[in-house]
Every structure is written in C-alpha cells, then in structure tokens.
C-alpha cells in the first residue's frame, strides 16, 4: 500500500489535475472552520495554510492568480469593519484608547452615535469579525486558484451543464473585464487624457462594457457552431421536470450551505435542506442524463489524492464545529478584557491536517512548480530558464 501510494501521491506522481470538486470540498471545509472561530491566531494559521497549499499546487494559468485578489478583498473587509467600529462605536468596554469628538445627533436618532470614545474591546471585536470574513474569502480564493473553472464545468453532471456554462461564462467575464479596463486606460493615455479619477472611470465604462458584450456574443457563436446544445432523445416534458428539480436542488443546496456556514442558524435547518437539495439534484441528473448527447474527454478521476484532499477539509471543518459546541471559549478571541488569545491544540492539529493537500496531491500539468522541479531552477540558471520560456512561446 505504502509503496503503491508513493507513485500516485505527491510530487513523484505523474502530473495530473486534481479533481476540482475535491478542492472545493476542501475549501468549503476550511471555510466552515473559519466561520466557527474568532480566534485571531487560528484564523491567521488558516489563511496561511490555504496560502501555502495554493503556492504549492497552483497551476500556471490566468485564473490561478485570484488568491491574491481574494486576500486583498479580505483586507478591505477588515478595514471597513474596523472603520465602522471607529465611526459608530458605542463605547462598550472599559479600556478607552482615544476619545473622538462626538457629533451631536437629533433626539430621534437616539441609540446611534458618531464618534465618541473608542475602546480596545470594540476594536478587537471588529477586527476579529472582519478576520473571519477575510479567512472565508481566502478559502474561496484558494478554491478558485486551485480548481480550473472549466474543468469544474467538465465534471459537472450532464444535467447541470447548461447552468454550469452560464456560471463559467460569468466567471470568465471578470478577468476579461480587468484586461479590458487596462486596455481602455492605455487608450486614454495614448489620447493624452488622464487615466485616473472619476471622469476617466466614466469615460472607460462604455467601451469596456461594449467589448465584454461583443465577446460574449462571439463566444456564443463559437459554441453554437461547435455543436453546443445539440438536442438528445428526451421529451420536452422530461426536460421541464428536470429543470424544475434542478432549480429546487440549487436552492436547497445554497440555503443549506449558507446555514452550515452561518453559525447562528440552527443545525437542524441546515442538514435537512442540504439533504433535500442533494436528493432533488440526483433525481434531476438521472432524468436529464438521458437526454443529453454529450460525452466527456479524459474526466478527472476521483482517486486516493481526491479522497485525502476532501477528507482533510471535512476533518478540519468537523473539528471546529465540534469544538465550538464542546469548548467554545477555545475558539473565541478574548475581547473583554483584551488578552492574548490561547492556541488550542486540537484545532491546530486539524489545520495541519488541512495542509496535507499541499503534499499529497500530484502536481498540475505544465505548472511552474513542475517545470522548476524538473529542471532544477535556481537563480544562476534564471536566464536559461527565461530563455526556455520564451522559446516555448515561439513556434520553432
């Protein structure tokens, strides 16, 4: 067993894509863990674990750069949360750091105060709550970087395919939009106009949207002429039922996952909804599976690495959920009074387990990590390495 697994796990295994579904299960497990703790040390560790796995298994593709974007988004969330705490602080707590001048408000606005004393307790609470959101964003960003959206689409069951396409097109819209914005800014520079500020933004909105729309139409034409949506054998009625079931399934799953992530909703609501969603989804797939004429090229297998990846995420999530029931103090960042948070052992071990995918998964094909490993990239051979990249980009 040990010997066999040496060939399908880790860097020695032949490079292949790890099933995108496994990455999403892992990321959602981590996100669940993040939602159950406000302990800043655990949250920081969690973000670090996600980042480490991303850095080790990120493929060399444009969509794989989204982790940094999500991290920045997380920082913005923290900043906004803390900003509001400063501005609208209610002055709960005893450790006053600074007292801002308070804006006098009319009597009907009683209960709201702008300015006033800022306490350490309040600041910390805001910081920790922001950090929870930032950590969850980091998990989503990790999944986005590790799992190719189009490969995810390829492993979506036939029945979900059309919905999947819509989602994927929407997802590819975003990076294209970024490219368009930079293109329009270049144009503004070449026209001698300022490329920053509100007016520049307003001036570039139209061309950017036009470009995006045009590309969507081109893509639709390309998909149509390559046989997308050829009709299979099923009757119109079956198709209608399958679609309705699909809608129910999506709603059930979404609400269920939300309930699971949001600690405030009773678990009794989350699990039945999730179960209902899954049952509806399976029925819809069985119904609609009959009608589609699609086949799949080299589907990603679900093998030992996938089991390990998803299990490590589920374990981390489960440990945090259970700990939050048994020993909620361990997972809470102490705010009243402000104190250095403890580092509970079990959750730390759980997070270490969640880092396993960075070791056990095979490398993605053609990634920079893979090229580096195979060619022994070092700073001395950097120019040789870059020569190699340029040569690869130019047809011989």
């Amino acid at each position, binding site marked *: 067993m040990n010997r066999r697994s040496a060939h399908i796990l880790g860097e020695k295994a032949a490079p292949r894509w790890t099933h995108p579904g496994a990455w999403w299960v892992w990321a959602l497990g981590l996100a669940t863990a993040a939602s159950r703790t406000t302990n800043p040390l655990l949250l920081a560790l969690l973000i670090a674990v996600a980042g480490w796995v991303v850095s080790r298994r990120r493929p060399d593709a444009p969509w794989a750069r989204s982790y940094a974007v999500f991290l920045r988004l997380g920082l913005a969330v923290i900043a906004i949360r803390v900003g509001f705490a400063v501005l609208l602080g209610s002055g709960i707590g005893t450790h006053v750091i600074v007292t801002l001048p308070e804006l006098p408000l009319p009597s009907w606005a009683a209960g709201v105060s702008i300015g006033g004393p800022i306490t350490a307790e309040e600041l910390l609470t805001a910081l920790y709550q922001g950090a929870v959101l930032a950590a969850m964003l980091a998990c989503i960003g990790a999944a986005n970087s590790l799992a190719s959206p189009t490969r995810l689409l390829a492993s979506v069951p036939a029945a979900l395919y059309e919905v999947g396409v819509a989602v994927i097109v929407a997802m590819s819209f975003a990076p294209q939009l970024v490219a368009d914005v930079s293109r329009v800014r270049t144009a503004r520079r070449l026209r001698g106009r300022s490329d920053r500020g509100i007016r520049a933004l307003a001036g570039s909105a139209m061309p950017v949207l036009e470009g995006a729309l045009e590309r969507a139409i081109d*893509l639709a*034409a390309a998909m*149509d*002429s390559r*046989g997308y949506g050829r009709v299979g054998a099923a009757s119109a009625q079956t198709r209608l039922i399958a679609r309705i079931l699909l809608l129910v399934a999506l709603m059930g799953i979404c609400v269920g996952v939300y309930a699971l992530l949001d600690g405030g909703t009773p678990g009794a609501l989350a699990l039945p909804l999730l179960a209902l969603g899954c049952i509806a989804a399976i029925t819809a797939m069985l119904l609609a599976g009959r009608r589609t004429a699609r086949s*799949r090229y080299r589907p990603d297998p679900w093998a030992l690495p996938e089991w390990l990846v998803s299990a490590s995420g589920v374990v981390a999530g489960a440990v945090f959920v259970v700990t939050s029931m048994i020993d909620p103090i361990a997972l809470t960042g102490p705010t009243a009074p402000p104190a250095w948070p403890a580092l509970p052992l079990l959750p730390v071990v759980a997070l270490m387990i969640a880092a396993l995918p960075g070791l056990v998964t095979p490398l993605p094909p053609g990634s920079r990590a893979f090229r580096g490993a195979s060619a022994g990239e070092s700073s001395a051979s950097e120019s040789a*390495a870059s020569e190699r990249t340029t040569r690869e*980009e*130019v047809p011989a």
Partner: protein
Amino acid sequence: MIIFDDVSVTYADSTRPVLSHVNLQIPEGELVLVVGRTGSGKSTLLRCVNGLVPHFTGGTLSGRVTVAGRDTRTHPPRELADVVGIVPQDPMSGFVTDIVEDELAYGMESLGLPSDLMRRRVEETLDLLGLAHLRNRSLMSLSGGERQRVAIGAVLTTHPSVLVLDEPTSALDPGAAEEVLAALQRLVHDLGVTVLLAEHRLERVVQYADRVIVVPGDGMPILVGTPDHIMIDAPVAPPVVELGRLAGWSPLPLSVRDARRAAGPLRERLAPLVDDAARRSRSTMHVIAGTPALSLSDVSVRHGQVHALRGINVAVDKGEIVAVMGRNGAGKSTLLGTLVGLHTPGSGSASVGGSAPSSLKGRSLIRRVGLVPQEPTHLLVADSVGEECRATDHDCNLTPGTTRTALDRLAPGVSDDMHPRDLSEGQRLALALAVVLAADPPVLLLDEPTRGLDYVAKKQLVSTLRSLAAEGRCVLLATHDVELVAEVATRVLVLADGEIVADGPVTDVVMGSPMFAPQISKVLSPQPWLTVAEVAAALEPAS
C-alpha cells in the same frame, strides 16, 4: 459538397443586400480562396456555410445553402457542427476552454463521441498541427501562430468535411503563416477536406488555391474562376502577378517558383540598370541627421518571467521610416509600448524628443509621440466619427474641425454620424491616424497597421506614411507585412527573443532572408529589387 442556390442575404438594419443571387458549387476536396474588399460580404459568405447567417446574425436569407446534403434552413449551426468547422478571424474569440488539449476535445464532447475515439483524435491532431509540446499550456499564453493552429485543430478533431477560415494568416508572421498554410495543404491533399478561406494577403495563399471567388461587394455578382484566370484582370494582385503583367509573361505566374523560372530574360535586361536604380530607389528619403528623434540605450523590459526586451540600442532620425520585424512574441509591441511609456524599462533609458516617455503624461506625451495600436478601435472612445473628431479637437486645443479636415485628407467620404465600428478597416485606421496626428507628434508609431487591410487601403497607407516622413516625422512600424516594408521602409530592425539581430537599410536586411524577403526580391535575386514599382521605373527609360 457546398451548394449555394440563388442565395441573397439582407441584414436587418440595412436595405441593400450584402450578397445577391449567389450561385456556387464547391466540390469535395477543393481549396477555395475568397477575396474582396473589406465589408464586401466575404465573411457573410463564409458564415452562410454553417448557418451562422442567418440563424445567429439575424437578417433574411433567400435561396438555399446546402452542405453535405443538409439545408442550413432546417439545420442550425449546432446541427452542422459535425460537417462544417469554422475558424473565426480572431481565434481567441472562439475559444471555449482554457487549456489546449481541452479545447481540441470540446467539439467532440458536444457531439458525444466515445472517449477512446476522442483520445485518439486529440493525439492525431496534436501531431498533425505540431502542437504536441503545447498540450497542457493555457490558451492565453500562446503566441498568435500557435493560437491559430489550436483554433484549426479544435475544429478538425470532429473530422468535418468542410473547413471555413476567415483570414487565418492576417495576424501571423511569415513563418507562422507558412506553417498554417502547410497544415491546410496537408488536409486538402491527404484527407480530402474542402477548405474555404478568406484572405487579404493574396501573395501568401493564391498559389495554393484551386479556385478563387471574388466578392466585389455592394451586392454585385460574384466571380468564380481558377487563380490564373482571375488574376489576369483582377484589380488587386500579389507582386509576382504584377511583375508577370509588367513583363508580359503568359501564363501568369502565381508563385515565386513559377516567376523565377520565367524571369531569366528579365534579369538580363535589368542587370545593367542595377547601379542606376540603387541611386534612385531611395531618393524619396528625407532623413535629417542630427539629434535623433528617438533613442533607446541599453533598454531591457521584463513582463514577469519573460524578458521582452534585452539590451536594445537604437536611435532613429527624423524623416526615417523604420520597420520593426520579427516573429510573434519577439518584443515588437513591447518596443513600441516602451516608447510611449506603457512599459518602464527595467534598465537603460528611453528618450523621445529629449525626455523619458514613462515620465510624460497627458498632452506633453501626445505632443511628442503618438501610437496607433494594433486594434485601432482601442484608441477610439466616442460612438460616432463626428464626436470622435470633436473630442480630439478638444483634447488637443485645436480649432473645431481640424481633425475632421485631417481625416478627409486621409480617407475622404467618411460620414460624421457613422459608428467607428461600422467603418471599414482602412477607414478605421485613417480615423485613428487622424486622432493621433492631431497633436502633431514628431514621432509616429504604428503596430501592425496592415492587419485586415485590403490592397486599396494599403496603397493609401503607403502614400500617407511617405508624406508624413517627408514632413520630417519619424515613423516606426511593427509589421509582419514584408511587401509593405519593401514598399515604404527606409530601414529595418529585426527582433528575436527581445534582442536586435539585424539593423540596416531595407535592401541589406531583407534581401538574403528567406522569411523577410519580398516576392520581387526572391524572383530577381541576387539583384537588389524590392518592388514592382522600382522595376517599372528602371525599365521605363530603357524601353
């Protein structure tokens, strides 16, 4: 294989038909070339074949198009996907997935082919088009030629009996274009695929075609014939054909090889005129020596891991027209971008009119240097020509109407209320040029100006560039178009992997090169002739 039976197409927003009463029969295994000016209806003709017109574009189609026995009226594009493969003008716009291998498999997945068959065909196609080393690469990271080959491969995997390509080589360097055309040749000869292709660069494709369809535009009847027949009195022709007409050869040569075999006597006649011609040929030069208009000294630019430019040293004088050549991805666009401050050199210094372009902003930038990007529309912001001109006058503090007058000089007859998108490629380029020239920059940069231009628009561009140089401007153009370079440039820079590998007068640089030599030079080498006009001018006093 393809039958057009009295086909007329009228788009919803126009009153005149784009195509009217087209009758056409294309048998199996033919390579058919479709030529015509921009906007003449070439693309419409191509898109009729798989039913994109009218199922996707809207409009009215009368008559009947039948492909492999299927009527496009009752078969939308998806139901024809197993018979017709269509490659759009911009391959990137047709990509559905993000990895080469998946892109090749996409069409087969839609058709529901069994997985072992898909596996085999993907491997075969990778080999057929020389893509095996790129199989796991992201499509975004490929060069233009690679993208084009992937786009062709992606439609080939379903084994269509008809392949339709819209300007497959317009964005490619000469080497990559030859690769793509060689692959097409192989499909036609070995697999019996019927190929229908539209192309402006006749010099690249006409010798491969079995038949040529001329679409004159404005709903006039189309012309169909063998290439040598069509070329006898075609208004546009590749340089070898023009040389053949000048020398009175019959049959007319279509390839360099044919022309070379007929050119013996002509070379003898030209031999005593060489010295004289060398003195005269570049008499249109207006090079003003002194402080160079632009200079790069030891400039290096990096994009992430890729060294786009390495140690570039170059200075260009006023009045020079310099062509920057090199394969796709050699650093041409980066070089131009550096000169307008889009990229900041990692080391070394760039200078345009005495200042570093990356430190310039707004008006002080556009008064020194202007760039017309590869896609002229990227420069245009307004939704009508008139609005665009007014905006430019405002940007540059000019009296209202100045840009409009400049545009009329470059391309007469563009109406004020047209949307820039609806202009022809040539008119769009003229508008972009007018916008850039409004600020009167002494340095003008153009990135791939002849992409998608028909011969008439190209002639117009050549005379514009010449008069700009005569005014003492310095013009730098990045291009793959060797015929344009032969026509207009005074000096050539060849880039490879971000380094300058050749820098000198056109004759010296392009003459010996199998890639960059224009057709006339290939026919008449070792004599230093580059264009038909030069040969004609030399022969005139002699005859």
